[in-house]
């Protein structure tokens, strides 16, 4: 559109004027050289960003699959096997995170934070879910970061260097999950715990819901303690967290009141209607 427009306008210029303009926009002028280097710089930056987005998506998908796998834990008799399998999956996720860390060597991590944040949150969710199933406690952000220190695989380059310089520069990279990413991941974890609670009732497990409600209450207290100190996203999650907690608390309440009356094989039915009711309320 604008090209045609310009051509038309140029016809109004005298011949010399047109010639002069062509000369001025010559491709080797200082300004054009500058912009060529800008092109290179911006393209490099955008390419890196895109690679990180792709890695982040892979991390998200694999973490989600790990969470689904872990949900099978309570219903399956082969618990040990599932835990091992989840560990293998999380190792694969960590290999992806290693690639992220490699991309970020020498960069300011926060410059590309938007690209990788969703993946890291999902990873926190998966890893803390696994940790909870194993130890019934909350994984700390330090514990997560400890697992994200990667050593370089021994390559020829590293063996060629003198032992002295090798000692000075340990070939490790690390990626630190930021406190906010950690908080958002933990907030997502509570949703998974709520699902775990409802499904464990379905399996006739009476103890887990009470354990979970206590744990969720601790996390909820923690989040209310942080309140609006954190960024906006954290406060937003607080609302969903409250709903999850309410569901779990209601489940415990029902178990307490009617648990002794209802035969175990019918518990699942009681809760399926209960959760439906809650879902309907949300819709309103």
């Amino acid at each position, binding site marked *: 559109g604008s090209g045609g427009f*310009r051509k038309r306008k140029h016809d109004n210029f005298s011949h010399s*004027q047109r010639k002069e303009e062509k000369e*001025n926009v010559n491709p080797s002028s200082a*300004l054009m050289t*500058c912009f060529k280097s800008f092109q290179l710089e911006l393209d490099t930056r955008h390419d890196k960003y895109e690679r990180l987005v792709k890695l982040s998506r892979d991390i998200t998908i694999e973490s989600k699959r790990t969470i689904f796998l872990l949900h099978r834990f309570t219903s399956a008799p082969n618990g040990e096997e599932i835990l091992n399998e989840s560990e293998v999956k999380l190792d694969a996720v960590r290999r992806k995170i290693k690639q992220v860390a490699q991309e970020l060597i020498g960069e300011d991590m926060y410059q590309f934070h938007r690209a990788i944040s969703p993946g890291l949150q999902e990873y926190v969710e998966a890893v803390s879910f696994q940790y909870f199933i194993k130890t019934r406690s909350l994984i700390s952000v330090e514990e997560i970061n400890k697992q994200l220190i990667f050593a370089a695989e021994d390559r020829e380059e590293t063996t060629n260097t003198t032992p002295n310089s090798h000692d000075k520069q340990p070939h490790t990279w690390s990626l630190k999950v930021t406190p906010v990413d950690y908080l958002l991941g933990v907030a997502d974890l509570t949703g998974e715990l709520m699902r775990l609670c409802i499904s464990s009732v379905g399996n006739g497990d009476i103890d887990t819901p009470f354990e979970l409600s206590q744990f969720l209450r*601790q996390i909820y207290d*923690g989040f209310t*303690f942080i309140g609006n100190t954190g960024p906006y996203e954290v406060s937003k999650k607080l609302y969903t967290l409250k709903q999850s907690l309410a569901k779990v608390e209601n489940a415990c309440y029902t178990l307490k009141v009617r648990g002794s009356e209802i035969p175990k094989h019918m518990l699942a039915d009681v809760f399926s209607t209960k959760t439906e009711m809650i879902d309907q309320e949300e819709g309103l």
Partner: protein
Amino acid sequence: MSVSDMFIALQGVLTADQDVREEIRKVVQALEQTAREILTLLQGVHQGAGFQDIPKKCQKAREHFGTVRTQMESLKTKFPADQYYRFHEHWRFVLQRLVFLAAFVVYLESETLVTRDAVAEILGIEADRERGFHLDIEDYLSGVLTLASELARLAVNSVTAGDYSRPLRISTFINELDSGFRLLNLKNDSLRKRYDGLKYDVKKIEEVVYDLSIRGLNKEAAVGAGGEK
């Protein structure tokens, strides 16, 4: 570590973060004030009489950039040097504004596009990320785009003030700038949105040149400019 201990520790981190942001905001406010003063000063060139003492205005503006440099120094001390992009949003706007002002001064003085290194020097910051508080390339380009719309306005006003040669020079400058930006592969972000406005500035200036051409005023300007030199 119990759950509540963990959250207490996290809360401490978040509060410290907020304190840093508060400190940054204070300095940025001061920077915005200085930027407004420089802008007010330079806006004088659009008035008829302003065309005469452009060099004086530029010199005054350059003095104000001294204040900017001290304020930048103080901004650098407010946060760890390697966390530039963590707090980038706080000064992004004012930095773009300052780039524009520096570019405007340099254009008025020499009718050239200020380089990224030169802007960094005027503002007392670095051009490279490795060396500390730096000028992000996208901020630089945004500032340059603001300059384009300011020059479109200047072209119109210089005709009103009877300076017929300036629009022609602005036209060649903007055309070169336009071809420069055409080289860039921009993503669909704020910079791209601002770049989309450049074609209207180009159009506006071409219209001014056209108006001068059909009235033969550009020839008069060329003779006049030759006479001056």
